[in-house]
């Protein structure tokens, strides 16, 4: 494999990924509201794909663009382009850029390598912090009889699930004492669904793959994804207790107790995330509409059509139309 092949591949990947990220800014603004109308399970999948899209589409378009050259160099389909007569595989329309100057290339690649190294260090650092946080939680908590639930002796109100590969639910002793048996079932069913789905790990992976997006879009996508995950777990809680109103009431009860303990002065410096409660309650109050079969069929058809379109762009992508 020639250096030119790798160079044009790297350049093309970054170009296509940036193009997708750029297009995502207006597109997401347009469809964001419509997405909230979709059932949370479908929305969560779409958002995950959207976060992955720069890496995914960038990768597919690059491979597709490089395919004719690769086939030519391996004598699978020869003579597709006279410029390949020298036997060096490359992506034609990026080739002039590759040839501009070796110095520019080396500096560009070095900067990119440094940025990637920096990000890799950040990922490692974050993984160590996650692991340490999880170990600390295990040290300070006591396992309860109900499933993967751990109790933390604290006078604060909290319940959450944490952990990347073996997530557990953690609940404060005060909250445990204040909730009725049914409300506790709701909370634990919700958290255990997070654990089963490994939502923390999912979100971590998607937040890293979404680094190609512009910060504003990435933030919106991650926030919407978080909401979709919460709604999926709310539905799991409804299925467990069989009463959607009870789930909604439990959310309100815990929000009230949190309000009583979050000092007013801290409000200015902490995230105001109450809007999620609104949407979650609304979803719980309104009966979920079944997904229309035709919509599902046409969505799959449209997705296949887009994929076919991308693959049919192979030659134009290779020679730039």
């Amino acid at each position: 494999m020639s250096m030119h092949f790798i160079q044009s591949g790297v350049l093309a990947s970054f170009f296509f990924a940036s193009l997708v990220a750029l297009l995502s800014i207006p597109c997401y603004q347009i469809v964001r509201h419509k997405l909230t109308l979709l059932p949370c399970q479908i929305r969560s999948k779409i958002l995950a794909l959207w976060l992955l899209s720069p890496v995914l589409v960038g990768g597919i378009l690059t491979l597709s663009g490089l395919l004719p050259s690769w086939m030519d160099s391996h004598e699978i389909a020869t003579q597709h382009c006279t410029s390949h007569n020298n036997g060096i595989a490359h992506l034609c329309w990026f080739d002039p850029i590759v040839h501009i100057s070796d110095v520019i290339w080396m500096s560009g690649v070095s900067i990119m390598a440094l940025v990637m190294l920096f990000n890799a260090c950040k990922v490692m650092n974050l993984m160590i912090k996650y692991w340490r946080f999880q170990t600390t939680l295990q040290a300070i908590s006591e396992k309860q009889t109900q499933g993967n639930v751990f109790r933390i002796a604290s006078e604060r109100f909290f319940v959450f699930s944490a952990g990347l590969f073996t997530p557990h639910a953690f609940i404060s002793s005060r909250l445990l004492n204040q909730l009725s048996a049914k409300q506790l079932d709701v909370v634990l069913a919700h958290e255990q669904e997070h654990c089963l789905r490994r939502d923390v790990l999912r979100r971590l992976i998607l937040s890293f793959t979404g680094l190609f997006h512009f910060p504003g879009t990435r933030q919106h996508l991650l926030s919407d994804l978080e909401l979709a995950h919460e709604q999926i777990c709310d539905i799991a809680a409804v299925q467990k207790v069989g009463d959607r109103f009870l789930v909604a009431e439990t959310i309100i009860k815990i929000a009230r107790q949190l309000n009583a303990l979050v000092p007013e002065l801290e409000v200015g410096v902490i995230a105001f995330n109450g809007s999620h409660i609104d949407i979650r309650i609304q979803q719980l109050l309104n009966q979920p509409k079944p997904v229309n079969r035709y919509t599902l069929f046409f969505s799959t058809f449209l997705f296949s059509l887009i994929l076919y379109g991308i693959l049919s762009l192979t030659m134009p992508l290779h020679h730039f139309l």
Partner: protein
Amino acid sequence: MQILKRPYLGELEMAVLEYLWSNGEFDAKGVHAALGKLRGISHNTIQSTLERLFKKKLLMRHKISHAYVYQTAVAREELMGRMINDVVNTISKDNTDGMLAAFVDIAARTDDVHLDRLEQLINEYRSSHSNKPSS
């Protein structure tokens, strides 16, 4: 992300502390006999774990003959209390960097009037739902 303020304690360090809390003071040989052999770890590993805990000011030591004898410098409840406080501070200041998924955002505050309105809405839905004849 806010890092936990207390020195991080690994699983072996916690096990050593738990052992010393339950059994009083011991030298490295005694701790190794109780924990090291069960876990298949060497005397040196236990020795360095005790040394680390001493540097973190969680153990005190005095020399008897040629060996150091270690005892805990903090009570179990005190250390646990500090660690719990650190975790609670981390999660309540929205500095978790996606480390957890909470039932209701711990760092958020929703307006009480707004919660009243939502509660009223739930009651309305509940009463209209219970008034509907079951099919």
